[in-house]
């Protein structure tokens, strides 16, 4: 409304000048604010993120992210299906690291049931989680570099990510929609072929990531575009509930793998990477260093991987093997009951969070003792990180918007649920 009034004022100003044949009139085209709509279909917004931006010239006065363009109602779907039925839906949350979402979800259900998982399964879960962290960070780095104009990096990081996706393919038969974890274990066992592929990937990874690093960290354009951009203080980030690499890039060493340990992370040696700057460049460096730490974890897990079962023996909660279902009466009955009625969890509620590649991915499960969750809340890191986007964009230049979005690395499948 105010903008329209201002337009009318300006028009009448031009009109009177025209009528008076006054050619000396000048006005500042930038004196007025302009509201533009960036997205939901914009190549640099990483999916269907819509940003309402108020501009003063090229400076952002205010920015409001609008969500919901990919809202599929997963929390409602979860309430209307069994616990097992929701596993495939977790792939579609953060679709850049599906396999770690599977693990995060089943960990929450296992906490609800008070279930212990064999050590082999735990190691494999750590392995796939770290693989997906590398894959997700590779996309984050590549697309961030592409947003500020360095296209080559995207091709290089996607080439590396492709190798991880190929391992997923051998491991569980799907490249992206993995659905790999199961309550009480895993869908399939880790195979020597996967170890071989992973070792080959790791042997090449160090050199390849060094290439990416050299291409960007000595690149003046990239540094200038990212340095001092989107900076927020650690206190602001904490208050806004921001987690993951964004918080660590501002000097807060919050990593749930270390702070609230789960799986076998306490037995593994890794560093929690922190930097002090808190700008887009620091987030880039944190992600880069975290990938190397993940590679370090992967090497340790390959060495320590124990043999043994990859599923718990709790027939009322854990799906039987396919061979068992086809050949044994008991297993067939249990399979039928688990698929149709679901597991038998206790009454209660739990919250379990993991450190996903974006930040704290938590599942809050309320059980009424039946096979379907009464309520399942997904605490998605992308939503919470995006809530700080408005504050980060304030005062930035319009060309910084894409660099800042790239540094936040939101995935809309997770942000919109």
């Amino acid at each position: 409304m105010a903008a329209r009034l201002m337009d009318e004022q300006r028009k009448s100003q031009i009109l009177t000048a025209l009528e008076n044949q006054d050619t000396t009139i000048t006005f500042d085209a930038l004196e007025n604010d302009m509201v533009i709509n960036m997205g939901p279909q914009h190549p640099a917004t990483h999916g269907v993120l819509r940003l309402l931006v108020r501009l003063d010239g090229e400076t952002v006065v205010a920015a409001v992210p609008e969500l919901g363009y990919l809202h599929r109602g997963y929390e409602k779907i979860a309430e209307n299906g069994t616990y097992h039925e929701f596993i495939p839906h977790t792939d579609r949350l953060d679709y850049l690291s599906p396999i770690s979402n599977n693990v995060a979800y089943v960990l929450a259900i296992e906490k609800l049931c008070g279930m212990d998982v064999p050590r082999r399964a735990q190691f494999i879960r750590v392995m796939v989680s770290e693989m997906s962290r590398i894959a997700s960070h590779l996309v984050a780095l590549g697309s961030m570099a592409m947003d500020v104009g360095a296209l080559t990096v995207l091709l290089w990081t996607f080439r590396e990510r492709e190798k991880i996706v190929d391992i997923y393919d051998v491991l569980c038969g799907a490249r992206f929609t993995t659905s790999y974890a199961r309550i009480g274990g895993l869908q399939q066992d880790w195979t020597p072929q996967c170890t071989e592929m992973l070792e080959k990937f790791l042997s090449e990874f160090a050199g390849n990531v060094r290439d990416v690093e050299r291409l960007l960290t000595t690149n003046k354009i990239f540094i200038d575009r990212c340095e001092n951009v989107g900076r927020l203080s650690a206190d602001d980030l904490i208050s806004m509930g921001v987690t993951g690499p964004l918080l660590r890039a501002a000097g807060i060493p919050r990593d749930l793998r270390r702070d609230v340990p789960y799986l076998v992370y306490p037995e593994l040696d890794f560093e929690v990477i922190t930097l002090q700057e808190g700008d887009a460049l620091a987030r880039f460096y944190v992600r880069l260093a975290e990938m190397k730490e993940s590679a370090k974890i992967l090497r340790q897990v390959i060495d320590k991987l124990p043999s043994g079962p990859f599923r718990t023996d709790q027939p009322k909660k854990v799906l039987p093997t396919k061979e068992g279902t086809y050949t044994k009466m008991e297993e067939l009955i249990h399979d039928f009951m688990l698929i149709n009625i679901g597991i038998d969890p206790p009454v209660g509620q739990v919250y379990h969070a993991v450190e996903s590649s974006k930040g704290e991915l938590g599942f809050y499960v309320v059980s009424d003792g039946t096979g379907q969750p009464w309520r399942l809340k997904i605490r998605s890191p992308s939503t919470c990180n995006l809530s700080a986007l408005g504050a980060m964009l304030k005062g930035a230049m319009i060309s910084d918007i894409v660099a800042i979005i790239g540094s936040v690395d939101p995935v809309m499948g997770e942000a919109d649920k």
Partner: protein
Amino acid sequence: MNERILEKLRAQLPAAVVGHEEFRGDFSVFIRKQDIVAVSKFLKDDPDLAFTMAIDVTAVDYYLPADRFEVVYHLYSLKNKKYLRLRVKVDEQDAEIPSVTGVWSSANWHERETYDMFGITFTGHPDLRRFYMPEEFEYFPLRKDFPLMGIPDSIPLPRR
């Protein structure tokens, strides 16, 4: 730690704590509705507890005649590396609760989402509008009486 939280809360705000529960290591404290902002402020500002992060705010629809909803807050203390869950009963007839956006700004979007999905009004919220659903949508999808398939024509299609 859990006892210390309870003791401190009981000492500071004796009437606020209605009960507590521990399940699988998760500690929940039941809080009276009108005290939620005071409790939040205390938990955040107390230097020993220091629950500086509101990780999540959501609600559960228990579909009961009285106290139908429960608003659930997940807090995290960076200092103690500890989670805490606050639970507040909210009746359907009086589906209002004071907003804690003034204490943790992360609650802003979580409360908007809860309003969008359950129709619980957070009084004092600076920008309480729909979060995922369109602004003209009249229903609250995560209430238990909202059908899974949706309500036909609830989102009008644009006319030609």
